[in-house]
């Protein structure tokens, strides 16, 4: 089943970005005929998906439906059995993308300072020391971080480490940013802070973000579109547009529109769980 994203008309507070000449709901990532089996279980069978460009898309669904598996396959961390995944018509190896792991403790390199961690994807691409430094300072400024980037990861708090992971993923100016349950290992305070920073970065850059989430409120809060998945064999049960304008704040959480959207998501989710 293919999902055609509805045209989003209400984007006044979103800053324009490089691709603003194109219609904003254009599909960025297209998945066609994706099949993935594990041992005896078929997780995805002839699965189609279109993820919109320049939007935050969150993926939500019942346990074991393969949310993380899906973005891991799209990001090339897991092999697929068959099917095609294209980014604006290009293969994965021809694009720049960022990936933020759920477990920041195991994803950062503890033998490097935080700044070297952030610069690592740039170093791989052969950037000079000066270029790296400039980019790190740029990111530090836009994230408005309040800690010393010369520290090593194990001297930072969990939230700060995840912030460093996100900065590392953003360093090479990716076209797409994947986040696999980025808040699940964080305390509430840090979740709120990083969620705000992510939204600010999104409004600044308009980068396509795909977020896997296990928390419905968080999924709806961040998203332009929430993709609700079914139980395996997994399909897209419903795509729900989230309308409240950005920047969304704590007040958004009690906004009637927002509450209604969340309720609708929950309804679909429950229906899928019981199916």
């Amino acid at each position, binding site marked *: 089943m293919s999902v055609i994203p509805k045209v989003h008309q209400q984007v006044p507070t979103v800053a324009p970005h490089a691709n603003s000449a194109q219609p904003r709901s254009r599909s960025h990532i297209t998945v066609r005929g994706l099949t993935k089996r594990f041992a005896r279980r078929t997780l995805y069978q002839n699965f189609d998906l279109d993820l919109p460009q320049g939007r935050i898309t969150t993926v939500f669904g019942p346990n074991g439906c393969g949310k993380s598996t899906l973005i891991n396959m799209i*990001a*090339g*961390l897991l092999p697929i059995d068959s099917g095609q995944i294209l980014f604006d018509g290009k293969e994965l190896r021809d694009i720049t993308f960022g*990936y933020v*792991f759920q*477990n920041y403790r*195991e*994803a*950062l*390199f*503890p*033998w490097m300072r935080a700044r070297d961690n952030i610069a*690592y*994807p740039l170093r*791989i*691409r052969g950037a000079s020391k000066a270029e790296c430094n400039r980019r790190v300072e740029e990111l530090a400024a836009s994230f408005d971080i309040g800690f010393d980037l010369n520290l*090593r*990861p*194990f001297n930072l708090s969990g939230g700060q480490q995840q912030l460093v992971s996100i900065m*590392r993923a953003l360093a*090479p100016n990716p076209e797409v940013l994947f986040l696999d349950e980025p808040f699940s290992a964080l305390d509430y305070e840090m979740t709120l802070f990083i969620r705000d920073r992510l939204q600010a970065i999104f409004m600044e850059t308009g980068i396509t973000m795909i977020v896997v989430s296990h928390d419905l409120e968080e999924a709806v809060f961040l998203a332009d579109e929430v993709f609700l998945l079914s139980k395996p064999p997994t399909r897209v049960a419903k795509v729900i547009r989230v309308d409240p304008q950005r920047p969304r704040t704590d007040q958004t959480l009690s906004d009637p529109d927002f509450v209604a959207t969340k309720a609708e998501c929950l309804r679909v989710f429950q229906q899928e769980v019981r199916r």
Partner: protein
Amino acid sequence: MSVSPKPPTYAWEFPDRIKATLSHWGRLVNAYTSYFQIYILGPILLYSIWWITSSAELVSPRLLPGPNETFHQLWMSVVYGDLLLDFWGTLKRTLYAFGIAAAFGIPIGVMLGASRKIYGSVEFVVDFFRSTPATAMFPLFLLLFGIGQEAQIAVAAFAALLIVLFSAAYGVINATKTRVLAARVMGANRWRVFKDVMVYESLPQTFVGLRTGISLALVVIIVAEMFIGSSNGLGRRIIDAQQVYDLREMYASIIATGVMGYSLNLLFIAIERRVVRWIH
């Protein structure tokens, strides 16, 4: 109908009075002792037992000289004798053997670990020789290198090499999967993943191997000095003292050997703390 759970009964219960007394004294000891006092309690206890045993002649003084006499002998041998020469000879051989083991063991181990297939094919051989006591190889190495310190160093190096190699390979194999994936997802090629991630990931395990390796090298060197012709070294000194029944000298040399082993261990822990700071 509900039955209220009966309190469990035991055949015998620790008397409350004794329990109270014990915990009272335990708390007192905790309140008035620092970590340092606890730390030196063991050595003081050993010294006391040794002193009491020898001065009460519970063991024949021909077999066990008192601690004061032994330490006096150690002092005399260091200052007026040639114990330091023997100490240096043993240390030098141990470091040579260890150096060879590290220089070959680490790179080969890391390379083996990086390729599952090659590792699988040599795992049995490495494991087999690692489990074979190195001392069983003395005669072979004597044939190969002749009588002298070359043979001693070679056996010790061989023993330490296998341990270092195995640990380094093990460290690489058990590198945190997420970090390897993270590097790969950022676009690092195989070589970069290897040098930027795998090598660092293997370091903690490699250090464990290095520490075990140098201890084993010392063991083998001491035994080799005793039984493979050697004109100096602490092993030689210990066996010479034993042959002429100079037990003070023998105990003093044993203590010197212990000092060497312990110092090497401390040195390696210090280096390890500095290099792999993310573990501690």
